[in-house]
């Protein structure tokens, strides 16, 4: 009934539309998704380490450990995929000319991402973040956007490269 009333109002006065659009090839890329996924990986490693400090694990702890490990692997894979997409779809000859080592950097991210899937050592997560931050700096530089480094205001409170957009 209410929907019909508003529908009637729409016909008379008009109502703005909000598009929940889909499948548009937009060629817009942003490494922030990979950075956030990397922070998640480190956070999961920290939470796993907390469980490791216990003398014995309860059934609930085992369930929690399984979830943390699964999510760590999922997010590490997400990092790899996000970087691969930017490298494959956005990085072209002008970017290769400016950053001839960009492919090596991307390959190192792939290796570091896999290491994070396999291991639980925090250093592996920190290494992945360092590489992804390097990639982010290079990415924004290709767009002429300056960057700055700041500690993310939430756990794991690691330093992240952000674009200076203002």
């Amino acid at each position, binding site marked *: 009934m209410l929907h019909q009333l*508003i529908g009637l109002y729409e016909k008379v006065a008009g109502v703005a539309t*909000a598009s929940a659009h889909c499948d548009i090839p937009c060629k817009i890329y942003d490494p*922030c998704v990979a950075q956030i996924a990397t922070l998640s990986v480190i956070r999961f490693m920290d939470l796993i380490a907390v469980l490791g400090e216990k003398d014995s694990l309860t059934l609930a702890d085992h369930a929690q450990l399984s979830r943390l490990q699964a999510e760590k692997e999922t997010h590490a894979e997400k990092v790899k995929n996000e970087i691969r997409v930017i490298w494959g779809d956005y990085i072209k000859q002008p970017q290769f000319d400016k950053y001839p080592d960009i492919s090596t950097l991307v390959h190192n991210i792939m290796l570091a991402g896999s290491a994070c899937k396999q291991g639980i050592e925090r250093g592996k997560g920190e290494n992945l973040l360092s590489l992804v931050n390097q990639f982010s700096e290079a990415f924004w530089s290709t767009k002429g956007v300056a960057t700055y480094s700041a500690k993310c205001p939430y756990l794991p409170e690691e330093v992240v490269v952000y674009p200076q957009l203002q």
Partner: protein
Amino acid sequence: MIGFGCYKIIGDSMLPSYKANDFVLTFRWPQNKYYCGDVIVVKHNFFGVIIKRIEHMHASGLITLVGDNSARSTDSKCLGMINFEQVLGRVIYHLPAPS
């Protein structure tokens, strides 16, 4: 700028929460009243007026968006980050279309 808005949804990227021909009422709260998971209407520089869910609030004040229907939604990578000035409001009432 604080105020109400009424929008009719087109497209499928917010299924199953919101479907085409639903109406939503929005209110533009102050910037500190938005949280991850909120559904907001945004004036996007490239895509026009869109409805999406907040995926992440960045320390810089920028916002990352995501659709509920990941199979049909332009993902946050394509949408990029938006600033608060582009936010038209958060959904405060959802009126589903008759099935």
